[in-house]
């Protein structure tokens, strides 16, 4: 019979039950070819992107950390800031898990490349040096917030997760050991020129920069300064123009020491534009992450003197916060709008029906140019999009409507008036093809960061003049009066310079995922961020969500609660559930 014959034939097919995955590589073959070695190392790098969620803000990407610091704020109420966070919070567990995933991948490469890979010895040595750098980087990120974590240096599985926490110092020493191994690897180049096929891989310059940073945490100022000088020797330098430094065209300029590589392919790009943009940005973005008015007020006048609202608006300090709204209203308000503003408490007898906009604009002129480069301020324009065409919009209050020409900038929070990010938010409709995946690399360490850390290390050693020179390189490039160039910028000593360096870092790095970690390291977080009356604020200072300091213990993030339950590690003191 035909059926029986058919059956007999197929029944003999021995391989029927031996199926293998179609879209993955079996673990036995991993690392065993040159190609698989390349791809395995790419996988370790991809861990730098962990936390990227293209459809919603994950809350754990580096730039998003600014909302916890001095320079940024979230538009929602954040439990860490309102004093209600517990050890079960997702931000703790996601951060922990993503960073350890990076460590697992690096361990896998460091362990298996020598055993399995047929690549050239030079390449293998270079890859191991790169992966040790990456492992050090992930441990650094963990140690910055959790302060002392379990150290694993080989691949491990669930049953092997038995390590106790190392001390904070032991982790720093491990980080320095890995970075030193990278620096000592002769096959690692000092720097890749823009356009090099290897661009984006670790360099010796990056390793020095990161080790210098680690030394700052250990307050080994001399070692830090020495490492930063090696970064300069490796060929890194400031890019001439601050504003365009953050555009795709300049992502490989000599200022960029180490950045997360992004391209505009689904799953490969950046999300800053999506979650820091506005509805008027390309493809209609969300303003989840905002600029704190504290940062805007910190930007000096061009001559280096402190900005004071009273200099522009003499009655400022006599008004309540709610009354100050009047300064920010648009010209030619309708009767309804006036009634509404009055209802909110604005002091409307100060309203100038045709001069209100001109008056407030003065507050934003003659300021450190980085203010305009980083922040969209009231009545400034922004090249956005309307009906999928380029459209110049103006940030006005209250919002009326968008339009192809001279429309209002539209946000998700139209009943609140917030400062918005300009940095890393695309302009017009051609800088990216999709809001979810932008093409611009995200710098983790750039040379301005090295210069200011260097300045810090020099100042702490009492080398004030050397430190000032480093700060002035950054200020000169920004276009603000250098230190010691006039009365307002005269440095009075080490303490003064320390605060000036910190402020320089605050105004230089908004939206770069640097400030929050700085405030933690300086132990200035409580004073600068949790001072009484601070919170998520509208432009005139009205607090939408008040901050509340839970206790000094929050300087050490909680070890994720489930990890306390699943492994033998202990919680940082102060955290209870």
């Amino acid at each position, binding site marked *: *019979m035909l*059926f029986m014959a*058919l*059956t007999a034939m197929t029944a003999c097919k021995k391989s*029927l*039950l031996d*199926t*293998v*995955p*179609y879209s*993955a590589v*079996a673990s036995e073959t*991993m690392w065993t070819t040159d190609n*698989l070695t390349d*791809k*395995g190392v*790419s*996988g*370790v*790098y991809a861990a730098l*992107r962990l936390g990227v969620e293209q459809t919603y803000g994950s809350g754990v990407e580096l730039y998003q950390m600014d909302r916890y610091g001095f320079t940024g704020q979230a538009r*929602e109420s954040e439990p860490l800031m*309102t004093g*209600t966070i517990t050890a079960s919070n997702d931000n703790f567990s996601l951060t*922990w898990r993503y960073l*350890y*995933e990076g460590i*697992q991948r690096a361990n*896998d490469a460091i362990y298996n490349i020598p055993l399995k890979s047929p690549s050239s010895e030079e390449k293998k040595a270079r890859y191991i040096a790169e992966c040790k750098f990456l492992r050090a980087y992930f441990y650094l990120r963990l140690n910055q917030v959790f302060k002392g974590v*379990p150290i694993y240096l080989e691949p491990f*599985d*669930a049953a092997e997760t038995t390590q106790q926490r190392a001390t904070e110092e032991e982790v720093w020493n491990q980080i320095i050991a890995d970075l030193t191994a990278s620096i000592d690897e002769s096959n690692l180049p000092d720097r890749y020129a823009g356009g*090099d096929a*290897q*661009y*984006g*891989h670790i360099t010796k310059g990056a390793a020095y920069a990161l080790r210098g940073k680690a030394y700052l945490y250990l307050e080994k100022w001399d070692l830090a300064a020495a490492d930063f000088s090696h970064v300069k020797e490796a060929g890194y330098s400031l890019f001439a123009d601050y504003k365009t430094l953050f555009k795709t065209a300049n992502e*490989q300029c000599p200022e960029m020491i180490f950045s997360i*590589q*992004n*391209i505009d*392919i689904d799953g*490969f790009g950046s999300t800053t534009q999506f979650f820091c943009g506005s509805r008027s940005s390309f493809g209609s973005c969300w303003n989840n992450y905002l600029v704190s008015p504290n940062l805007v007020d910190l930007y000096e006048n061009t001559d280096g003197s402190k900005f004071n609202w009273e200099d522009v608006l003499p009655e400022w300090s006599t008004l309540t916060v709610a009354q100050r709204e009047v300064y920010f209203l648009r010209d030619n308000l309708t009767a309804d709008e006036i*009634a*509404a503003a009055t209802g*909110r408490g604005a002091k409307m007898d100060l309203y100038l029906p045709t001069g209100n906009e001109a008056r407030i604009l003065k507050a934003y002129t003659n300021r450190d140019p980085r203010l305009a480069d980083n922040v969209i301020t009231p009545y400034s324009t922004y090249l956005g999009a309307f*009906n*999928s*065409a380029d459209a110049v919009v103006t940030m006005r209050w209250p919002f009326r*409507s968008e339009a192809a020409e001279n429309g209002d900038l*539209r946000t998700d929070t*139209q*009943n609140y008036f917030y400062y918005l990010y300009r940095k890393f938010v695309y302009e017009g409709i051609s800088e990216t*093809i999709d809001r979810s995946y932008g093409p611009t690399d995200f710098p983790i360490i750039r040379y301005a960061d090295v210069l200011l850390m260097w300045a810090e290390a020099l100042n702490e050693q009492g080398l004030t003049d050397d430190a000032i020179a480093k700060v002035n390189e950054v200020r000169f490039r920004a276009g603000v009066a250098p230190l010691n160039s006039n009365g307002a910028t005269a440095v009075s000593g080490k303490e003064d310079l320390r605060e000036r360096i910190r402020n320089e870092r605050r105004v230089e790095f908004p939206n770069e995922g640097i400030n929050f970690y700085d405030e933690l390291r300086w132990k200035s977080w409580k004073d600068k961020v949790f001072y009484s009356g601070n919170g998520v604020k509208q432009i005139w200072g009205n607090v939408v969500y*008040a901050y509340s300091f839970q206790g000094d213990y929050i300087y050490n993030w909680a070890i994720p609660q*489930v*990890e306390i*339950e699943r492994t033998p590690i202990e919680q940082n003191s102060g955290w*209870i*559930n």
Partner: protein
Amino acid sequence: MVCAIFLYTISYAQTISGEVLNEHNEPIAGATVRLLNSNKATSTNDNGLFTIAAQQGDTLVFSFMGYENVTQVVTGGTMQVKMTINASNVLSDVVVVGYGVQKKVNLIGSVATIDAKAIENRPVSTLSSALSGTSSGVSVRQTSGQPGSDGATIRIRGTGTLNNNDALVIIDGVQGTMDAVNPNDVESISVLKDAAASAIYGSLAANGVILITTKKGTTDKITVSYTGLASVAKPANMPRFVSDYITHMKLINEGYNNLGQTPVYTQTTMDLWAAANANPNGLTDQGIPNSVAYPNTDWGKEIFENNIVQRHNVSLNGGINKTQFLLSAGYLDNPGTMVNTGSNKYDFRVNLQSRVAKFLTVGTQTFGSLQNYGKASTANAFNYLSQTNPGLYPMYNGVYGFPSAAEENVQANNIFRYLNGTGGANDESRISTTVFGIVDITKGLQFETRFNYQNRAQEINTHSNTYELWDFASNVQRVGPVSPDQLTTRYEFNKNYFYSIDNVLRYTTTLAEKHDISALLGYNQYYYNYYDFNATKQGLIDESITTLGSATNLISAGGDEYDYAMRSYFGRINYAYNNRYLFEGVFRYDGSSRFASQRRWGLFPSFSAGWRISEEDFMQDVDFVTNLKLRGSWGKTGNNGTANYDYQAVYGTTNYSFNALAATGLISTKFANPDLQWETTTTTNVGLDGNLLHNKLNFEIDLYHKFTNGILYTPDIPLTVGTAAAATQNIAEVTNKGVELTLGYSGMVGTLNYAFSGNFAYNFNRITKYKGALQQGYIRDAEGNEVYTSNLGNVSNGTTTRILEDHEINEFYLYNVYKGNGGYFNADGTVDINGGPKGGMIRTPDDMAWLEAMIAAGYIFQPSGGVDKTKIWYGDLIYADRNGDGIYGNTYDQYFTNKSATPRYNYGFNLNLSYRNIDFSMLWAGSAGMWYYWNATGYNNPIVQLGYGVNHIVADDHYYYNDANPGDPANNINGHYPRLKNTTDAQNAITSDFYLYNASYLKLKNIQIGYTLPQHISQKAAMSRVRLYLSGENIFTITKYPGLDPEIGAGIGYPTMRQFALGLNITF
């Protein structure tokens, strides 16, 4: 079962007359009298009398619904025929079982059968959803009313495992998908519940087996049947939002005021609406009606529509010589109850078999379908539905509305636009073909071979439709059409196919008249493959041109493939002594590609025995017992419910780039477990069946114990391990215990026939082993402090529903709303630690004074941790301190509630009545003992937000106190829901048992009334049977659950349809 036929006189007349009586000598009206081998037929009149032209020696066949057919040779001119209620099914009915049929009386496994009658003439669009309430131990839940996604989830005897709980579906002997079968083609359905019945399917059968048998051709008669129905369908329930915009604005403002924030809506805007509402037909300056410019849209209603559902089937059924055939074709048009979500389905079937030689029968069962689906994306529709509000008009003059009020959130969704916003096509085609051959080798020995191939393919095109949004108050376009270069088009294709081969050898014999023996041996192999690909491009020439080739930029392209295979050997032996003592043994030996070669094979045996008590000599005088059988069985079945390649470690791809060029990364994505093997379910079943009171009463009782061990599950592992998926393990054990009862009673009163049946099942599951017991409590740490520790994260998986040893599967784990004793202070003036509000909500100054005294005494109330309008205030809930650490409502105050969403009781009732040509039936189905956790902003929690709707659930019954006006008539300090808050509510929106609702329900699933035309009328139109009926589906639900429908589950989804159908069945 006496059938007596009396002949009065003998005559040679050409016209035969007579009467038909029931066993009580009452006339039967409407009985069919047919002359064998001819088209001549008639029916009895109201007095049970008939006349028919016939000759001596002709054979007449008498038939009537619910009665035994009577065949009688004409021997005279008049005759009296006595008919008895159909009882033959008791003794001669056969039941389809795995790889064969068995007499129902000899069955020792637990098998529920569902006759085609129970599902026919119902306006349901899927077979699975027609099964609810029809048999005990079979829980059927239709979780969506969306056309094409409206198949039901079926659970046989509860939830047995932590992975896949779906029953195996076998259609005419081969694996398949239940809803691929046209309900009209079904002849019978058997549900195999215990291991005795299902072990022949071994590793596939742990969750039970559903055997579907389709209609075969009949011998020597050809009939053409048409069945059709049209029903008016409307949503069974709709979410109800506040539609009066002024009320809506006040409620939103209330949420701002409650937090001490400036209200968002101004009096100016409310006045604007008040003026427009007073003159709805007046025109704005732009000539637009006030009711459009200043709308009060009821979105809960607006997105739904009433539609007509149609179904038509034609079948040709018959046989010529040694060949029998069934040809059928069906059409279903289900437009659904929401725009752009309808589905059309076309299907056909060919069942053919032919005895080509004395020893050989060959044939086929081949069926296929083509179904298309509406393109509206409903996945987010109910989320977006809450993100809109009445100040938005759906559509006017062909353009969509934009919020009219100046304060309104311009993001408020026009959900109508959203549903219409997606264009394209979604077509799914299926074909299944089986060819078989049966060889009769010698007497009693038969060989059957069966080859099946099935293919399902789906093609989807998705593109966005452009649109405009207008503010009708100012008549200004606010959002213009998207330019074609920003539009995208996407094509997707996915396909799976599988084949299976079965070879079965059967032998049956009877030795010494008393020993019935039958045996079966079989072989099966099975291979399944799936693949898909998709591509998206952006930049169209024009909105109407959406091919990939005409678009410009490639946005994404993807694709994947997977497969699995099985090979099996199985056998069965039955022995019956004297029809009295029954024994059966079954084995199956399975190999699966999902396990490593050394762990691949599993043996699944079962043994069962039955004792037909009613056949014993001592029962022969017990008149009221027709049949009584005691059954017992024990057996093992398996489950390979894991992903396809879990035993192998693999590296998957990830994304990175260097120098602005994409670079694929490879990373370990899953930990391997080479020791992975079958999970095994061991079922013990005891049952008693009986037919009593001359077959008027029948019952079935089953008690079972079902134990699943080695459950395939992927436990949570330490976060430190990274993001790769944990290794799947054979890690857990679950025990299910249950009782099932089916009871039926039928009879007649005069010419009224009635039949009632009810079924009831109780089932309860326990995780008997997972990762150890929960241990939590106080320990003393190194510094000597009392600290509360827990191993919860280590021994349990999940969040608000959890897996934990000694608990129910997915038991709810929630914060506990505080329950005070209603007192406040002790006699000495200290605060009463057990005092405070009984319902856990701070409602009165006394409640507040107690709370403040507690805080002053050092207690902390989380999550807000303080008393003021932005933290805890009047109208807020507080939570119990279950671990006694003085902090109320922190992490370890969550508790296991002993409640889950799995029903513990399922039941159904069925009533059939017939009176002459009129028949009536009713079907009820219900579930009880299940709970839903439902806490959704915009639906049932007290968060209000600009742009979002306010649901009546909360709007009508929440705490409100106007502290500026104690006499405010809106004050409601007894409201059930907490006070309204703008955007966030850390205190009340946490996962507490406040939002755990009893979801028990009872539904009137179907009610039907039919009328069969008297045959003398239908025959004039050359039709042998014509029946007209009215059928109502999903009529009403009795429940306390406040959500849309407890059957679709917690939350809001596409509602099920309520249908009123008019149907017609014609047989030629």
